[in-house]
Each structure stands twice: as structure tokens, then as C-alpha cells.
């Protein structure tokens, strides 16, 4: 027989609330957050990447340096002058074209690199060594221009690729 005392009715939690609570807990665990943790939270801040460097200024600097070296060699006259004069003329045209291209897009940067290349660059005394140094210069420059070709605009890519091709021919001439 019933004792007449009524049973308390169980607290009814809506199913939707249970699901939302379970989902939130799962999301926190998945994200690596423990809402009951007492350890301090570490906040990771990603540093802003530096602005991309325009390869043109480096390519101009390289061309200027190599041009000075070729000019020093040409100044010696003789065989060196005969072999290197056409190559010097090519490199001068490269420098002009590179400066013109930089001025088209970045007049300020172009102004900073427009000073004529002056000074002397030490070169070896032996003719064969001079040619080897200039051949190495052409090889290094070819790598730089080749690498830069993949990251620039289409218009610039044509210019840099053409110069890279020319530098390969310089290496052929210098054997």
C-alpha cells in the first residue's frame, strides 16, 4: 500500500541542453582547452612577416659589381679587352634595362640605385685567373636571375629570363 507520501518528480533537463553542453565540452577538449585547468594560458602571437624584398635592387647591385670587375679587366687592354668588351657592353645594357624597369615601378628605389658605378674592384694579375673570376661572376649572376624569374611579374620575368640566358652565353664564351 502506498504510504501517501508523494515522490518528488525528477528534474527534467531538456535533451537539447544536454546535447549543447556535451558538444561544448567536446569542442573544448578537442581544442586542447581544459575549463578546469589551473595552469596559466599561453597566448601565441604570430609575428608579422617582413615585407617581401624586391629582387631588383639586389640584381642591380650584383650587375654593378660585376660590371666594375669587367671594366677593370678591359682597362688592362690586350686579350682581356678583346674578349671582355662585348660582354661588358651586354652587362651595361642589362644594368640600364634593370634600372629602367625599377624606375617604372619604384621611382624612389630607382633613384637610390641610379648612381653610376664608380671605383675599382681588385682583380687577379693572371689573365686566366681574371677570366675565371668573371666566369664565376656570370655563373653566380645567372643563378640569381634564374631564381628571381620565378617570383616576379610576367613582364619582369621576361626581362630577367632573357638576362639569365645571356649570362649563360657569357659562361660559354669564357669557356
Amino acid at each position, binding site marked *: 500500500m502506498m504510504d501517501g507520501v508523494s515522490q518528488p518528480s525528477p528534474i527534467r533537463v531538456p535533451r537539447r541542453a544536454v546535447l549543447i553542453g556535451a558538444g561544448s565540452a567536446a569542442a573544448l577538449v578537442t581544442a586542447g582547452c581544459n575549463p578546469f585547468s589551473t595552469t596559466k594560458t599561453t597566448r601565441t602571437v604570430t609575428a608579422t612577416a617582413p615585407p617581401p624584398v624586391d629582387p631588383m635592387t639586389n640584381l642591380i647591385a650584383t650587375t654593378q659589381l660585376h660590371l666594375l670587375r669587367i671594366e677593370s679587366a678591359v682597362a688592362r687592354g690586350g686579350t682581356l679587352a678583346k674578349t671582355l668588351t*662585348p*660582354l661588358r*657592353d*651586354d652587362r651595361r*645594357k*642589362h644594368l640600364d*634595362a634593370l634600372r629602367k624597369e625599377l624606375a617604372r615601378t619604384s621611382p624612389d628605389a630607382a633613384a637610390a640605385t641610379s648612381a653610376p658605378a664608380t671605383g675599382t674592384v681588385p682583380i687577379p694579375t693572371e689573365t686566366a685567373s681574371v677570366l675565371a673570376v668573371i666566369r664565376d661572376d656570370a655563373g653566380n649572376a645567372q643563378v640569381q636571375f*634564374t631564381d628571381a*624569374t*620565378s*617570383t616576379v611579374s*610576367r*613582364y619582369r*620575368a*621576361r*626581362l630577367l*629570363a*632573357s*638576362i*639569365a*640566358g*645571356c649570362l*649563360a*652565353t*657569357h659562361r*660559354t*664564351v669564357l669557356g
Partner: protein
Amino acid sequence: MTAPSPTPSPQLSESSPAASGSPAPSAVATLAPTTAPATSLDKTAAAAMQVALASENSAVWAYSLVAAFDPDNADTASDMRDAHMVRRDDASERLTVAKVKPNAAAPAYKLPKPVTDAKSARALAMTIESDNAAAWLGVVGSTDDSALRSYALAGLTDAAVRLTTWKKIAKVNPLTVPFPGQQGSD
């Protein structure tokens, strides 16, 4: 052959069929492909690749003539023809992979000048390589895909070096051009 924009017009042009037969492909491979082919090409890049392919086809055809009229340099001409064959086959495959049908080679090509001796044969070889450099430079400027640019730059560089080799042989000075592939540079 008429070159679509943006590449300059090559000087070798297709002649009417039945003028002569196209040389048989060689199994010799001197240049390995440097990059994996792209699975798609936009219209500009595909058009430029077709021009480069046409340039390779005309080079393969014309080098047989160079070798015949310049027997002293027949081996050089043969090596260069093989190199063009490898690049032709590779360019064709790249177009196919990108679901672009590669244009077929013409049976023969119109020469810019008649070839009658070694001197004119060497001049033809120089024309072939100038055209070829221009065609590959066109590909470089047709795409933002760095892998395709690198591939095209390799084609341009090879053509420029071969041009210098022929200038040396023909004793033409200067041996180099400042901007290979650009109009008016040679």
C-alpha cells in the same frame, strides 16, 4: 607558321605539305625534363606553349638541312637536333597532360633564305636558335606558374647557348646578344 601573341614571329614558316618528309623521331634524349608538367594551362600559356612546340618542330626539321650543307659541323648539328627533339617531345607531353592537343608538325617549312652552302646553313642554324629563344621567352612571359617559367627558361637558355656556339663556328661577332629571345636583340 604564324606566331600568336605574345611571342614574336619566328622566321621559319610552314610550307605547303608534300614538300618533303619530316624526320623520324629519335630515341636519343639529351635533356631531361626539369619539372613535372602542370595538369592545366590557361589559354595564354597554352598558346605560348604551342608556339614553342612549333619552334621545336621547325628546328628538328631544319637541322637536318644544316647537317647536310655543313658536313664539318654535322655532329654539332646532329646533337642540337637531338636536343630539340627531346624538348619537342617534352613540350608535346606537357600540353597533353594539360589536356591541350599539341599541334602537329608541318611536313616542311619555308626557309627565310635558301640554304646552298655551309655559310648559309650556319646562318639558318642561327635563325633557328634565335626563333627558339623567342618562343621560350614567350612562354616565360605567358604564365605565373613558376615551374613552367623555370622549364621555359631552360629552353631559352639552351637556345641562347646554341646560338653562341653557331656564332663561334661562323666567326660572327659579337658572340653574344644582350637579351636573347627579345626582338631586335640579335
